[in-house]
Protein backbone atom coordinates (compact mmCIF):
# COMPACT_ATOMS: atom_id res chain seq x y z
CA UNK A 1 0.00 0.00 0.00
CA UNK A 2 1.05 3.58 -0.69
CA UNK A 3 0.08 5.69 2.27
CA UNK A 4 0.10 9.48 1.87
CA UNK A 5 0.01 11.43 5.12
CA UNK A 6 -1.01 15.01 4.39
CA UNK A 7 -1.03 17.76 6.96
CA UNK A 8 -3.86 20.26 6.67
CA UNK A 9 -3.10 23.57 4.91
CA UNK A 10 -2.56 26.88 6.75
CA UNK A 11 -5.66 27.87 8.74
CA UNK A 12 -6.81 31.00 10.55
CA UNK A 13 -5.71 31.22 14.16
CA UNK A 14 -8.13 30.33 16.93
CA UNK A 15 -9.85 33.38 18.38
CA UNK A 16 -12.73 34.29 20.59
CA UNK A 17 -15.86 32.85 18.99
CA UNK A 18 -13.72 30.63 16.75
CA UNK A 19 -12.64 27.51 18.63
CA UNK A 20 -9.86 25.30 17.32
CA UNK A 21 -12.19 22.75 15.69
CA UNK A 22 -13.87 25.33 13.45
CA UNK A 23 -10.77 27.15 12.19
CA UNK A 24 -11.15 27.43 8.39
CA UNK A 25 -8.26 27.56 5.94
CA UNK A 26 -6.93 31.02 5.24
CA UNK A 27 -6.89 32.41 1.69
CA UNK A 28 -3.13 32.09 1.68
CA UNK A 29 -3.46 28.50 2.90
CA UNK A 30 -5.86 27.66 0.07
CA UNK A 31 -3.66 29.21 -2.59
CA UNK A 32 -0.52 27.53 -1.32
CA UNK A 33 -2.18 24.16 -0.98
CA UNK A 34 -3.61 24.36 -4.50
CA UNK A 35 -0.02 24.75 -5.66
CA UNK A 36 1.14 21.88 -3.41
CA UNK A 37 -1.61 19.70 -4.87
CA UNK A 38 -0.18 20.34 -8.33
CA UNK A 39 3.14 19.12 -6.92
CA UNK A 40 1.48 15.95 -5.67
CA UNK A 41 -0.07 15.46 -9.08
CA UNK A 42 3.39 15.84 -10.66
CA UNK A 43 4.56 13.03 -8.39
CA UNK A 44 1.74 10.84 -9.72
CA UNK A 45 -0.28 10.83 -6.51
CA UNK A 46 -3.73 9.21 -6.94
CA UNK A 47 -5.81 7.83 -4.09
CA UNK A 48 -8.33 4.99 -3.86
CA UNK A 49 -9.62 6.50 -0.65
CA UNK A 50 -9.09 9.75 1.18
CA UNK A 51 -9.69 9.79 4.93
CA UNK A 52 -9.76 13.05 6.82
CA UNK A 53 -10.13 14.37 10.34
CA UNK A 54 -13.53 15.95 11.13
CA UNK A 55 -11.94 19.27 12.15
CA UNK A 56 -12.88 21.99 9.68
CA UNK A 57 -9.34 22.74 8.43
CA UNK A 58 -8.87 19.06 7.57
CA UNK A 59 -12.28 18.90 5.85
CA UNK A 60 -11.35 21.89 3.72
CA UNK A 61 -7.94 20.44 2.89
CA UNK A 62 -9.65 17.17 1.89
CA UNK A 63 -11.94 19.19 -0.40
CA UNK A 64 -8.89 20.67 -2.11
CA UNK A 65 -7.27 17.25 -2.43
CA UNK A 66 -10.44 15.57 -3.76
CA UNK A 67 -9.49 15.88 -7.47
CA UNK A 68 -6.67 13.40 -6.84
CA UNK A 69 -9.04 10.83 -5.31
CA UNK A 70 -10.76 8.20 -7.45
CA UNK A 71 -12.78 6.78 -4.55
CA UNK A 72 -14.71 8.03 -1.55
CA UNK A 73 -13.77 10.78 0.89
CA UNK A 74 -14.34 9.33 4.36
CA UNK A 75 -14.37 11.26 7.61
CA UNK A 76 -12.37 9.52 10.34
CA UNK A 77 -12.33 10.62 13.96
CA UNK A 78 -9.12 8.64 14.49
CA UNK A 79 -7.22 11.30 12.58
CA UNK A 80 -8.02 13.98 15.12
CA UNK A 81 -6.00 12.19 17.81
CA UNK A 82 -3.00 9.91 18.26
CA UNK A 83 -3.22 7.14 15.64
CA UNK A 84 -3.99 3.60 16.80
CA UNK A 85 -4.32 0.12 15.33
CA UNK A 86 -8.06 0.61 14.77
CA UNK A 87 -7.22 3.37 12.29
CA UNK A 88 -4.80 1.07 10.44
CA UNK A 89 -7.53 -1.59 10.29
CA UNK A 90 -9.84 0.81 8.47
CA UNK A 91 -7.43 1.52 5.59
CA UNK A 92 -8.60 0.11 2.26
CA UNK A 93 -7.05 0.22 -1.20
CA UNK A 94 -3.67 0.33 -2.86
CA UNK A 95 -3.17 4.05 -2.37
CA UNK A 96 -4.72 5.88 0.58
CA UNK A 97 -4.41 9.48 1.72
CA UNK A 98 -4.86 10.57 5.34
CA UNK A 99 -5.45 14.25 6.00
CA UNK A 100 -4.81 15.19 9.60
CA UNK A 101 -2.80 17.11 12.14
CA UNK A 102 0.56 17.33 13.85
CA UNK A 103 2.11 15.81 15.83
CA UNK A 104 -0.17 12.84 15.12
CA UNK A 105 0.83 12.38 11.48
CA UNK A 106 4.59 12.42 11.98
CA UNK A 107 4.24 10.09 14.99
CA UNK A 108 2.10 7.79 12.84
CA UNK A 109 4.85 7.82 10.18
CA UNK A 110 7.52 6.99 12.77
CA UNK A 111 5.37 4.21 14.24
CA UNK A 112 4.74 2.63 10.83
CA UNK A 113 8.40 2.86 9.77
CA UNK A 114 10.26 2.16 13.02
CA UNK A 115 7.73 0.25 15.12
CA UNK A 116 6.58 0.66 18.71
CA UNK A 117 9.98 1.71 20.08
CA UNK A 118 9.89 4.87 17.96
CA UNK A 119 6.99 6.23 19.99
CA UNK A 120 9.20 6.45 23.09
CA UNK A 121 12.15 8.01 21.28
CA UNK A 122 12.87 11.72 21.46
CA UNK A 123 13.66 11.87 17.76
CA UNK A 124 10.87 12.88 15.41
CA UNK A 125 9.90 14.21 12.01
CA UNK A 126 8.69 17.69 11.35
CA UNK A 127 5.99 18.20 8.73
CA UNK A 128 4.93 21.69 7.70
CA UNK A 129 1.31 22.67 7.05
CA UNK A 130 0.32 21.43 3.59
CA UNK A 131 3.26 19.02 3.50
CA UNK A 132 3.08 15.28 2.82
CA UNK A 133 4.79 12.03 3.76
CA UNK A 134 4.67 9.01 1.46
CA UNK A 135 5.07 5.56 3.01
CA UNK A 136 4.97 2.23 1.26
CA UNK A 137 4.38 -1.33 2.50
CA UNK A 138 1.96 -3.14 4.80
CA UNK A 139 0.22 -0.66 7.11
CA UNK A 140 1.51 -2.26 10.31
CA UNK A 141 3.89 -0.83 12.93
CA UNK A 142 7.47 -1.18 11.65
CA UNK A 143 6.36 -2.64 8.30
CA UNK A 144 6.42 0.43 6.05
CA UNK A 145 9.29 2.35 4.55
CA UNK A 146 9.64 6.04 4.03
CA UNK A 147 9.56 7.05 0.35
CA UNK A 148 9.21 10.84 0.57
CA UNK A 149 9.10 13.53 3.22
CA UNK A 150 7.80 16.49 1.27
CA UNK A 151 7.72 19.87 2.93
CA UNK A 152 5.12 22.28 1.52
CA UNK A 153 7.72 24.44 -0.16
CA UNK A 154 9.08 21.42 -2.04
CA UNK A 155 5.59 20.45 -3.19
CA UNK A 156 4.88 23.99 -4.38
CA UNK A 157 8.11 24.05 -6.36
CA UNK A 158 7.18 20.75 -7.96
CA UNK A 159 3.80 22.23 -8.83
CA UNK A 160 5.12 25.29 -10.63
Amino acid at each position, binding site marked *: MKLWLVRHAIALEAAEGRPDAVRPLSERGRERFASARRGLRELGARFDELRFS*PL*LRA*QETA*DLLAPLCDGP*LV*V*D*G*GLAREADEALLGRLRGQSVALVGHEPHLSRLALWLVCGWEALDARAGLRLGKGGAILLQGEPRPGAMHLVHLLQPRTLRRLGR
Partner: protein
Amino acid sequence: MLDAAHKAAALGPALDEGLALAGLADALRRARTESSPESIHALRTLAAKLEARLRLCGRRALRDDLRALRRACAHLRDLDACPPRSLAEEEVRARRTAQVARLARDLSSHELEALCAGLAFVPRAELSNLLERLATWQRKFVVQGRAAWREEASIALHALRRRARRIRHAREWLGLDATDFARAHSALGRWHDLQVSGETDKSPLEESLRVAKLAWRAAAKSVLEEGGSK
Protein backbone atom coordinates in the same frame (compact mmCIF):
# COMPACT_ATOMS: atom_id res chain seq x y z
CA MET B 1 -33.57 35.33 -10.42
CA LEU B 2 -33.82 35.96 -6.71
CA ASP B 3 -32.42 39.19 -5.40
CA ALA B 4 -29.96 37.94 -2.76
CA ALA B 5 -29.73 41.27 -0.96
CA HIS B 6 -33.49 41.52 -0.49
CA LYS B 7 -33.92 37.89 0.43
CA ALA B 8 -31.08 37.77 2.93
CA ALA B 9 -33.04 39.10 5.88
CA ALA B 10 -35.98 36.79 5.26
CA LEU B 11 -33.82 33.70 4.83
CA GLY B 12 -31.58 34.32 7.80
CA PRO B 13 -33.54 32.20 10.29
CA ALA B 14 -33.62 29.20 7.93
CA LEU B 15 -29.86 29.37 7.42
CA ASP B 16 -29.32 29.67 11.14
CA GLU B 17 -30.63 26.15 11.46
CA GLY B 18 -27.32 25.30 9.85
CA LEU B 19 -26.95 21.72 8.80
CA ALA B 20 -29.53 20.40 11.29
CA LEU B 21 -26.87 18.55 13.23
CA ALA B 22 -28.85 17.62 16.29
CA GLY B 23 -31.41 16.29 13.84
CA LEU B 24 -28.96 13.75 12.46
CA ALA B 25 -27.90 12.51 15.90
CA ASP B 26 -31.57 12.12 16.89
CA ALA B 27 -32.51 10.39 13.64
CA LEU B 28 -29.58 7.97 14.08
CA ARG B 29 -30.64 7.20 17.63
CA ARG B 30 -34.24 6.56 16.57
CA ALA B 31 -33.26 4.33 13.66
CA ARG B 32 -30.92 2.32 15.92
CA THR B 33 -33.49 1.78 18.66
CA GLU B 34 -36.79 1.58 16.73
CA SER B 35 -35.91 0.33 13.21
CA SER B 36 -39.46 1.28 12.24
CA PRO B 37 -40.21 2.12 8.58
CA GLU B 38 -40.81 5.73 9.66
CA SER B 39 -37.50 6.08 11.50
CA ILE B 40 -35.54 4.55 8.60
CA HIS B 41 -37.30 6.82 6.12
CA ALA B 42 -36.65 9.87 8.32
CA LEU B 43 -32.94 9.03 8.61
CA ARG B 44 -32.56 8.44 4.90
CA THR B 45 -34.40 11.64 4.02
CA LEU B 46 -32.36 13.69 6.47
CA ALA B 47 -29.11 12.29 5.06
CA ALA B 48 -30.29 13.32 1.57
CA LYS B 49 -31.18 16.81 2.83
CA LEU B 50 -27.79 17.30 4.47
CA GLU B 51 -26.04 16.02 1.37
CA ALA B 52 -27.96 18.54 -0.75
CA ARG B 53 -27.07 21.35 1.68
CA LEU B 54 -23.36 20.52 1.60
CA ARG B 55 -23.48 20.34 -2.19
CA LEU B 56 -25.21 23.70 -2.29
CA CYS B 57 -22.44 25.05 -0.04
CA GLY B 58 -19.88 23.77 -2.57
CA ARG B 59 -18.42 21.30 -0.06
CA ARG B 60 -17.33 17.82 -1.07
CA ALA B 61 -16.07 16.53 2.31
CA LEU B 62 -18.73 14.62 4.33
CA ARG B 63 -20.99 14.17 1.31
CA ASP B 64 -19.68 10.67 0.57
CA ASP B 65 -20.31 9.72 4.20
CA LEU B 66 -23.90 10.97 3.97
CA ARG B 67 -24.37 9.12 0.70
CA ALA B 68 -23.08 5.93 2.34
CA LEU B 69 -25.56 6.44 5.18
CA ARG B 70 -28.40 7.00 2.71
CA ARG B 71 -27.44 3.86 0.80
CA ALA B 72 -27.20 1.84 3.99
CA CYS B 73 -30.88 2.64 4.59
CA ALA B 74 -31.90 2.08 0.98
CA HIS B 75 -32.46 -1.71 0.95
CA LEU B 76 -34.62 -1.61 4.02
CA ARG B 77 -36.52 1.41 2.76
CA ASP B 78 -37.15 -0.29 -0.60
CA LEU B 79 -38.45 -3.35 1.22
CA ASP B 80 -40.76 -1.19 3.36
CA ALA B 81 -41.97 0.94 0.45
CA CYS B 82 -42.39 -1.83 -2.13
CA PRO B 83 -42.52 -5.30 -0.53
CA PRO B 84 -42.27 -7.89 -3.33
CA ARG B 85 -45.81 -9.02 -4.11
CA SER B 86 -44.68 -12.51 -5.07
CA LEU B 87 -43.44 -13.23 -1.52
CA ALA B 88 -45.50 -14.44 1.42
CA GLU B 89 -45.83 -12.06 4.36
CA GLU B 90 -43.58 -14.23 6.57
CA GLU B 91 -40.86 -14.17 3.92
CA VAL B 92 -41.03 -10.38 3.70
CA ARG B 93 -40.78 -10.18 7.50
CA ALA B 94 -37.76 -12.49 7.50
CA ARG B 95 -36.06 -10.35 4.87
CA ARG B 96 -36.81 -7.24 6.87
CA THR B 97 -35.29 -8.77 10.01
CA ALA B 98 -32.11 -9.56 8.07
CA GLN B 99 -31.97 -6.05 6.64
CA VAL B 100 -32.50 -4.50 10.09
CA ALA B 101 -29.53 -6.52 11.44
CA ARG B 102 -27.38 -5.37 8.52
CA LEU B 103 -28.37 -1.75 8.99
CA ALA B 104 -27.68 -1.98 12.74
CA ARG B 105 -24.09 -2.98 11.91
CA ASP B 106 -23.77 -0.10 9.44
CA LEU B 107 -25.19 2.40 11.93
CA SER B 108 -22.67 1.41 14.58
CA SER B 109 -19.76 2.28 12.30
CA HIS B 110 -16.98 4.48 13.56
CA GLU B 111 -17.47 6.91 10.67
CA LEU B 112 -20.95 7.98 11.79
CA GLU B 113 -19.67 9.45 15.04
CA ALA B 114 -17.05 11.38 13.10
CA LEU B 115 -19.69 12.44 10.57
CA CYS B 116 -21.83 14.02 13.30
CA ALA B 117 -18.74 15.75 14.69
CA GLY B 118 -17.64 16.93 11.24
CA LEU B 119 -21.07 18.37 10.38
CA ALA B 120 -21.01 20.36 13.60
CA PHE B 121 -17.91 22.21 12.37
CA VAL B 122 -19.28 23.24 8.96
CA PRO B 123 -19.70 27.02 8.94
CA ARG B 124 -22.62 29.02 7.62
CA ALA B 125 -22.36 29.74 3.89
CA GLU B 126 -22.75 33.02 2.00
CA LEU B 127 -26.36 33.33 0.91
CA SER B 128 -25.51 34.90 -2.46
CA ASN B 129 -23.34 31.89 -3.35
CA LEU B 130 -26.11 29.50 -2.37
CA LEU B 131 -28.68 31.29 -4.51
CA GLU B 132 -26.33 31.45 -7.47
CA ARG B 133 -25.65 27.72 -7.28
CA LEU B 134 -29.37 26.98 -6.86
CA ALA B 135 -30.18 28.95 -10.01
CA THR B 136 -27.61 26.90 -11.93
CA TRP B 137 -29.13 23.66 -10.64
CA GLN B 138 -32.58 24.79 -11.75
CA ARG B 139 -31.37 25.70 -15.23
CA LYS B 140 -29.80 22.25 -15.55
CA PHE B 141 -33.02 20.64 -14.33
CA VAL B 142 -34.96 22.32 -17.11
CA VAL B 143 -32.49 21.23 -19.80
CA GLN B 144 -32.38 17.67 -18.47
CA GLY B 145 -36.16 17.63 -17.91
CA ARG B 146 -36.91 18.65 -21.48
CA ALA B 147 -34.63 15.89 -22.77
CA ALA B 148 -36.25 13.34 -20.43
CA TRP B 149 -39.68 14.52 -21.57
CA ARG B 150 -38.77 13.60 -25.16
CA GLU B 151 -36.93 10.35 -24.46
CA GLU B 152 -38.56 8.91 -21.32
CA ALA B 153 -35.46 6.74 -20.84
CA SER B 154 -35.17 5.16 -17.39
CA ILE B 155 -31.66 6.50 -16.80
CA ALA B 156 -32.63 10.05 -17.76
CA LEU B 157 -35.68 9.97 -15.52
CA HIS B 158 -33.71 8.62 -12.58
CA ALA B 159 -31.06 11.34 -12.98
CA LEU B 160 -33.86 13.90 -13.17
CA ARG B 161 -35.35 12.53 -9.98
CA ARG B 162 -32.06 12.99 -8.14
CA ARG B 163 -31.79 16.54 -9.44
CA ALA B 164 -35.39 17.32 -8.42
CA ARG B 165 -34.67 15.97 -4.94
CA ARG B 166 -31.58 18.15 -4.51
CA ILE B 167 -33.39 21.29 -5.67
CA ARG B 168 -36.39 20.53 -3.48
CA HIS B 169 -34.21 20.06 -0.38
CA ALA B 170 -32.18 23.18 -1.18
CA ARG B 171 -35.28 25.33 -1.66
CA GLU B 172 -36.87 24.01 1.53
CA TRP B 173 -33.68 24.78 3.45
CA LEU B 174 -33.59 28.31 2.12
CA GLY B 175 -37.27 28.82 2.92
CA LEU B 176 -38.25 29.14 -0.75
CA ASP B 177 -41.39 27.67 -2.30
CA ALA B 178 -40.52 24.10 -3.29
CA THR B 179 -44.00 22.89 -4.25
CA ASP B 180 -43.32 22.25 -7.94
CA PHE B 181 -40.05 20.44 -7.29
CA ALA B 182 -41.58 18.45 -4.44
CA ARG B 183 -44.37 17.33 -6.75
CA ALA B 184 -41.92 16.38 -9.51
CA HIS B 185 -39.70 14.59 -7.00
CA SER B 186 -42.61 12.61 -5.53
CA ALA B 187 -44.00 11.62 -8.91
CA LEU B 188 -40.59 10.51 -10.16
CA GLY B 189 -40.11 8.72 -6.83
CA ARG B 190 -43.32 6.74 -7.31
CA TRP B 191 -42.19 5.82 -10.79
CA HIS B 192 -38.80 4.72 -9.42
CA ASP B 193 -40.40 2.66 -6.63
CA LEU B 194 -42.37 0.80 -9.29
CA GLN B 195 -39.16 0.20 -11.22
CA VAL B 196 -37.52 -1.20 -8.08
CA SER B 197 -40.57 -3.30 -7.39
CA GLY B 198 -40.43 -4.57 -11.00
CA GLU B 199 -36.84 -5.71 -10.51
CA THR B 200 -37.66 -7.78 -7.44
CA ASP B 201 -41.14 -8.82 -8.44
CA LYS B 202 -41.82 -9.94 -11.99
CA SER B 203 -45.58 -9.40 -11.86
CA PRO B 204 -46.98 -7.15 -14.62
CA LEU B 205 -46.49 -3.45 -13.90
CA GLU B 206 -47.17 -1.83 -17.25
CA GLU B 207 -50.40 -0.18 -16.19
CA SER B 208 -48.90 1.17 -12.95
CA LEU B 209 -45.86 2.49 -14.80
CA ARG B 210 -48.09 4.15 -17.38
CA VAL B 211 -50.01 5.90 -14.61
CA ALA B 212 -46.77 6.91 -12.87
CA LYS B 213 -45.37 8.38 -16.10
CA LEU B 214 -48.52 10.44 -16.60
CA ALA B 215 -48.15 11.66 -13.00
CA TRP B 216 -44.55 12.80 -13.43
CA ARG B 217 -45.38 14.57 -16.68
CA ALA B 218 -48.21 16.41 -14.96
CA ALA B 219 -45.96 17.27 -12.01
CA ALA B 220 -43.02 18.50 -14.09
CA LYS B 221 -45.11 20.51 -16.54
CA SER B 222 -45.17 23.78 -14.62
CA VAL B 223 -41.43 23.73 -13.82
CA LEU B 224 -40.42 22.97 -17.39
CA GLU B 225 -42.76 25.54 -18.89
CA GLU B 226 -41.52 28.28 -16.58
CA GLY B 227 -37.91 27.40 -17.41
CA GLY B 228 -36.85 27.10 -13.76
CA SER B 229 -36.91 30.86 -13.36
CA LYS B 230 -38.85 30.98 -10.10
